């Protein structure tokens, strides 16, 4: 009876939503918003673009400028990084002691779940979108993204997604955080059994995850359309920069992977709320794993390809030479994109699946190591005999290569079925993928944040603090995650809030590394905020002296034009009205040069 009532409510809500959609479609002639030409929001090749932006908070709430949206993504990603990071600090402190001491085991499980989801979906994907939104249109000579408003919508779906994912931590009556781990394995996540995972907190988390997937898909469609259709006249496929190539490939992966996750999540929600049995019946657990990992493994490459693009972009600038084997890197990026869909069940070797299928997944998993290794050799060879400048972005890029080698090689071992059966579900796996996600992906993010800091702030960061940030991060990463690899060799299972006393020393070592990471990130925040507000202003459009080595690129040229026409520096309120909408600012902008 009550179920029928709920169903009726759901149907009513559906009808209401349809009515809202119909009303929205009629109330305004949306086609009138179609740009007059070129797909840009305001056709900013003319000079009137700058007048279109309101000031203050309204600017940020209403902006469709790709650069503003990039900054919004960046701020969002960094806030999520702080949240996810603080969650894991609490977990690592709990793990100093073998028993349950600081927090309860269930709260540990909650933090573990939210840490994973936050870092992957609320930090990883958005921080990449920050770079791609800001830079891709500049790099390819586009006025803006192909669909500026979809771009804005894609971003604004993310804050509610975060609130839903974290809803269990808020003081809501009867709502507890999800404790399913980020993999949401069934039957636990269906709410079956005597546990507490039938709670609405899990539903809210699933809805938030779904929303973040919708956001990523909208962004991906936008990037594909932008890179295919909005490139400047001279930017042919042969001239496309490596970062845009990786974003294009990543967008393709998102397009095929995230809708599948969305479908699986909807099925799971139906299982939880409407009495279906997609995943609770016989074979349901394996079905979930197949669906989840068919999304989940490409997700790894969704997260790592653009950072590889950043590193491929930064390393040559500070090595004084071009990227070695540029086209090798491009083609291997595409190869990774395709092969990433053929390896998903290497996460499932221990499930007892047919050994013939297992062997095929092993084969493709070994094959996909080749393109990644090719890139690594290209980065090393680019630096080889180059005039290396160890600036902060370069240090983070070199750190990326170093950590990626350890993360990658430990992964190759896991691709081998017999090794995997020993190490599966141990801390070895945790150490392996954290070398990649923290040691590589986050490092590339920092590399990009420092490298383009002058571009998006008009100021320079503090060098000493930047290097302190790097070294603390590098040492912290290696202490933490190498200890985890050793823990895994010792047989320490992952996801546990408590452990046997024999693992105490290595766990304590990992915690020390995590605290070093925390100190490093506090320094980063200080440096980032203070330098943005008070750092020395950049006078020149070439802060890294790239012209001398012939490695000057389009985004700095855009920045140079901005400097020459004395447009804003991105910080002062006086200048905000003069910020432009991307693309070129031509002569009329000079009118404001003295303002």
């Amino acid at each position, binding site marked *: 009876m009550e179920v029928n009532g709920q169903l009726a409510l759901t149907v009513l809500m559906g009808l209401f939503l349809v009515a809202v959609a119909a009303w929205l479609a009629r109330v305004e002639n949306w086609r009138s918003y179609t740009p007059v030409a070129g797909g840009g929001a305001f056709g900013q090749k003319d000079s009137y673009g700058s007048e279109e932006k309101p000031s203050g908070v309204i600017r940020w709430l209403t902006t469709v400028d790709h650069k503003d949206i990039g900054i919004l993504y960046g701020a969002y990603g960094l806030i999520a990084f702080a949240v996810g990071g603080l969650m894991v600090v609490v977990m690592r402190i709990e793990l100093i002691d073998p028993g349950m001491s600081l927090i309860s085991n269930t709260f540990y499980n909650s933090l573990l779940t939210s840490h994973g989801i936050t870092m992957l979906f609320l930090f990883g994907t958005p921080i990449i979108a920050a770079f791609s939104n800001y830079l891709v249109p500049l790099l390819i000579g586009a006025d803006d993204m192909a669909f500026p408003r979809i771009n804005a919508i894609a971003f604004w779906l993310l804050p509610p997604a975060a609130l839903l994912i974290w809803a269990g931590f808020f003081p809501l009556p009867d709502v507890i955080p999800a404790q399913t781990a980020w993999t949401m394995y069934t039957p636990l996540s269906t709410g079956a059994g005597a546990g507490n995972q039938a709670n609405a907190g899990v539903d809210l988390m699933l809805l938030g995850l779904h929303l973040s997937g919708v956001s990523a898909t909208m962004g991906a469609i936008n990037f594909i359309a932008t890179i295919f259709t909005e490139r400047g006249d001279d930017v042919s496929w042969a001239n496309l920069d490596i970062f845009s190539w990786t974003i294009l490939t990543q967008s393709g992966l998102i397009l095929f992977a995230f809708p599948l996750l969305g479908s699986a999540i909807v099925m799971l929600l139906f299982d939880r709320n409407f009495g279906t049995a997609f995943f609770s019946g016989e074979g349901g657990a394996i079905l979930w794993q197949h669906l989840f990992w068919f999304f989940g493994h490409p997700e790894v490459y969704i997260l790592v390809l653009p950072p590889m693009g950043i590193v491929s972009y930064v390393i040559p600038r500070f090595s004084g030479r071009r990227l*070695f084997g540029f086209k090798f890197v491009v083609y291997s990026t595409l190869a990774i994109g395709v092969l990433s869909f053929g390896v998903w069940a290497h996460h499932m070797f221990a499930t007892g699946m047919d050994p*013939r299928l297992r062997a095929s997944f092993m084969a493709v998993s070994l094959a996909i190591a080749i393109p990644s290794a090719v890139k690594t050799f290209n980065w090393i060879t680019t630096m080889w005999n*180059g005039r290396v400048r160890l600036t902060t972005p370069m240090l983070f890029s070199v750190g990326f290569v170093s950590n990626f080698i350890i993360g990658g090689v430990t992964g190759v071992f896991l691709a081998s079925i017999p090794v995997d059966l020993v190490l599966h579900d141990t801390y070895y796996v945790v150490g392996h993928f954290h070398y990649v996600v923290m040691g590589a992906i986050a490092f590339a993010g920092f590399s990009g944040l420092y490298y383009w800091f002058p571009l998006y702030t008009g100021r320079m960061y503090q060098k000493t603090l930047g290097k302190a940030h790097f070294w603390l991060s590098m040492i912290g990463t290696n202490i933490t995650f190498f200890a985890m690899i050793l823990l895994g060799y010792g047989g320490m299972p992952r996801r546990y809030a408590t452990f046997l006393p024999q693992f105490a020393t290595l766990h304590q070592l990992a915690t020390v590394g995590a605290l070093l990471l925390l100190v490093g990130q506090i320094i980063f925040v200080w440096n980032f905020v203070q330098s943005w507000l008070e*750092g020395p202003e950049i006078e020149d459009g070439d802060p890294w*002296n790239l012209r001398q080595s012939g490695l000057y690129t389009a985004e700095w040229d855009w920045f140079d*034009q901005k400097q020459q026409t004395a447009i804003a520096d991105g910080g002062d309120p006086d200048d905000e009205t003069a910020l432009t909408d991307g693309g070129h600012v031509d002569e009329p902008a000079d009118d404001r040069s003295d303002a």
Partner: protein
Amino acid sequence: MANKIFDRDTLLDLTVNVVPLFIIAFFVVAFAVLSPFGIDPLASSIQFGLLAVPFVLLAILTYFAGRAVAGSEQSGEVYLPGQAGVRGAKPLEEDHGPAAIDPESTDDAPEVEGDGEDDADGDAEDDADGDAEDDADGDAEDDADTKDA
């Protein structure tokens, strides 16, 4: 047309994707010959399908990507990646990508100077970099910090 696009240099560039294709092909043959777990109509079909599908898709994507890149190299001017939009950028002299792939080429310097460096890659780099980078190292950051202090 196809042969014109897929010349020696382009094929050399594409070898990077031929290696994983070869690995997959190797396992197809190995599983066909050895099949330690026996042949079962359903399981074996899926087993070989899991190898064949990525193989075919990768081969197709490699073909089209190579055609797009090499084709646009031949039909338009080639700049250093990321430089096409720079005001006053000069196109590269050679049609094909980084010389680092081909040890006989001399175009490793950031821009082709045409100054007749006949050395192998490493030496060419030294020459090119020596001039360009001496004064550049970290100055931007140094200056910035000084000012900040």
